[in-house]
């Protein structure tokens, strides 16, 4: 008789079980929400954004894009970069430091295509996901590459230079660090494009440190050595400013066509004044945002749409700079400034 009672008891418990669970289900709104909050605070991935520098408008815009994505995808973002854009050693130290600090992914822009490879491989072998933005590094362990199609951007710059109406085009090239992959690719795109036009002749080509001061001096030296130059082309934000200042100082705004890269408030002012005639504007905000988005996708095991993403570029000239589209491309929307 005892056993029989036991069975009945168990039967009753079984019958009540779903009912109690259902009842508890009615109050589950709070219950589930609490649970969700808890889990989200438990796992927060850490992503290091290591760039070539931290103080140019370009990298600030990359950071603000990355920041927007890290807020959206709930990632911890650490943003750092060396003082100047040639310092690959500091970058390597930063990579190692980020790995030992427990970064789950590194969004990286290489100063030096070769010299950064080892540190990146080291990090990747420890299981850190590597996403390259803007400037590539010589590593097969990179999960995803996001950036401007540099060759195409170079071609755009070339076409802008060929727009110049003068019968002979004496071109001077002011490029930055020779080891930086993106600068070289842009220059190649530019050279390939202008080579198709018989008016064009590249009379001088210099590589300068990526700094406004040095670029300005070197450009002035180049213009002094080759007074026939009527087109100057340059490939990043700092050298663009340097070339712009050189033109301003030499008062050559009307006689020289300058094709430059990237935008900040100063170079936009130069564009307006005619010291710079065309800006190839990249989309750094998108690079930062997409870099973080890819990091999130990789860390959560989603597959990426593509291992190589090209962000848009736009050619801005004095004529179109206040078009709606160009406004959007060259002036960052920041509610605080």
């Amino acid at each position, binding site marked *: 008789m005892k056993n029989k009672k036991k069975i009945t008891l168990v039967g009753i418990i*079984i019958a009540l079980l*779903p009912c109690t669970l259902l009842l508890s289900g009615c109050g589950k709104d709070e219950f589930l929400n609490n649970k969700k909050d808890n889990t989200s605070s438990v796992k927060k991935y850490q992503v290091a954004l290591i760039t070539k520098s931290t103080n140019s408008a370009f990298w600030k815009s990359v950071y603000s*894009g990355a920041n*927007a994505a890290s807020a959206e995808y709930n990632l911890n973002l650490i943003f750092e970069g060396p003082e100047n854009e040639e310092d690959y050693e500091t970058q390597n130290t930063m990579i190692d430091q980020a790995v030992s600090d427990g970064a789950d992914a590194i969004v990286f822009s290489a100063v030096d295509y070769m010299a950064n490879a080892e540190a990146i491989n080291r990090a990747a072998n420890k299981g850190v996901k590597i996403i390259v933005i803007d400037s590539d590094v010589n590593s097969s362990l990179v999960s995803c590459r996001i950036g401007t199609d540099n060759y195409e951007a170079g071609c755009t710059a070339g076409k802008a230079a060929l727009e110049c109406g003068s019968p002979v085009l004496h071109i001077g090239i002011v490029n930055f660090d020779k080891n930086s992959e993106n600068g070289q690719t842009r220059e190649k795109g530019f050279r390939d494009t202008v080579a198709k036009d018989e008016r064009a002749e590249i009379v001088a080509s210099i590589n300068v440190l990526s700094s406004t001061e040095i670029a300005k001096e070197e450009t002035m030296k180049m213009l002094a050595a080759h007074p026939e130059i009527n087109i100057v082309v340059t490939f990043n934000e700092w050298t663009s400013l340097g070339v712009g200042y050189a033109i301003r100082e030499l008062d050559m705004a009307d006689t020289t066509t300058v094709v430059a890269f990237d935008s900040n408030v100063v170079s936009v002012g130069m564009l307006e004044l005619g010291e710079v005639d065309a800006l190839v504007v990249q989309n750094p905000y998108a690079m930062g*945002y997409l870099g973080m988005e890819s990091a999130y996708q990789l860390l959560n095991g989603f597959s990426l749409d593509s291992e190589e993403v090209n962000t848009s570029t736009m050619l801005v000239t004095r004529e179109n700079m206040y078009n709606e589209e160009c406004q*959007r491309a060259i002036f960052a929307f*920041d*509610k605080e400034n």
Partner: protein
Amino acid sequence: MSGKDKKENGISWNISLSGIFTTLVTFIVLVTSIAVMLIFIRIYRRTMEENAVTGSEQTIVQVQNTLENYTNDMRSVMDIIQNNITEDGADRDEFIRGLVKVRSDVVAIMTYDERGNLTDCWSDGRETKEKWLKNLSYIELTKNGDKFNITKPHVESLFVDYYPWVVTLSQRLTDYDGKEIQVTMDIRFSNIANYVDDVGIGQHGYCYIIDNKGNIIYHPQQQLIYSGLKEENTGNLQEGTFVRSNVIYTVHTLENCNWRIVGVCYVDEMITAKVEKLGRLLLIILSLVLIASFAVGWIFSKLFSKPAKNLADAIGSFEGNAEHFHFKQVRGTSEINALSSSFGHMVIRIQRLMEKVREEEVILRKTELKALQAQINPHFLYNTLDAIAWLCEGGRNQDAEEMVNSLARLFRISISRGHELIPIKKEVQHAESYLKIEKFRYKNQFTYSIDVDEECLGYLCNKITLQPIIENAIYHGLNRMVDEGMIKIGIHQSGEDILFTVEDNGVGMTREQCSEILYRESGDRTGIGIKNVNDRIKIYFGSSFGLMITSELDKGTCVTIRMPKVREGEYSEK
């Protein structure tokens, strides 16, 4: 839950009780909980959707109120400016400069003349460009159009190195000296932006501001849209709340200007995610129920089904081997215990009954056999007596005497005071007496020899063992022969046993005949049969003892009898 048996007439399912129980419980719980869950999810979904719509509506109304306050505020600022500008006081500049300083969201206030030339510009210490490419803040207002206008966002293009995104408020008014002028005020978003950014509808919902042409005034993800990373559907939004491809849109137009507020929230996100969680909960419940019902099944099986099966198995094996069956009590529910103990009692009673029956049978057989032995074959007696009479008649008194002595010994030993087991010595005398009588009767048609191991004589054997075999050898083996017959009798030891052999050189038997003799009851004429001898030995000593016949046609027959060595007093008759 258990296997199925196929039987000749159709298929029958052989399912255990606990299996049925488990399946039923699981099934019922499964069906009811799924049904309840589905109904619940349906109601929940509908409620959530209604909540989402009303929630969205409420939020957007709040935003609308706030923004109306904001734009009203801007208008009142505009009114103040208007009052001051038309007054042409000396402190006009002072006042407007102060206003720009105090209102951090006002970037610049400008006045234009009829032809659109900038006449005055006040800003918070910003340096205006010497020449500008394009003034994005100036918009030519139509004379008869709305006097108050708000532009879509643009970059402030008048200052050196300062390009904030602004919207421009423009108003036409009449100057102190009667000239038509236009006043514009560039406003940054910071206040609106901070407010709009914080508006959340549901988990991932948001709201944004557009003008009546669909241009985005402010969006929480403005830079994403400007960078081409995100697109927002701004065209063709009718007033009110509507659901379009799983997105709830709530659109309200501000009363005092051409701005519209669009609230976006995702039905799927709010509802489907929760329904998914419910589904997960359901799965957990179901698995719990499954585990529980298996546990119940297990308990049930342990308490009832398994003992029942054990009991059935026990009954089965009892059926197969009743004699040596040993019953172990089966434990289970009280019913099972009762069944088990009754079965135990029954087994013991049946085994006792069987034992009793067997004993009675043995006793009966022994009695029967004794009765048979006591019988004297009348034909044999008549024939012998005839022969003796014939000897007396012929005056062969010595032979007659010997015959009478032999006959007397034969009977004496046959009776043996009712003992079944007699010394082998006596049995040999019995056989010899019989052979003598028969030899006379058959007029010396055969000879015989008896070869006995002296050591065997002291052991016991069943009485009348050899005689029926000799009788068989004479009647069936030698009688039909033309040549002189020969019977050899041997008694020897074989390990722990004693072997009796009776050999003749008669006609022999086929294999079938041999086995027939061992199992056929003897007829009236032939006294105690060979079967009887065999049966008696087996009854007394067990089945490993008894007769064995080997025979070959026209060569002869050999009967071997195996018996254990038994001494006087060692075998107590039952």
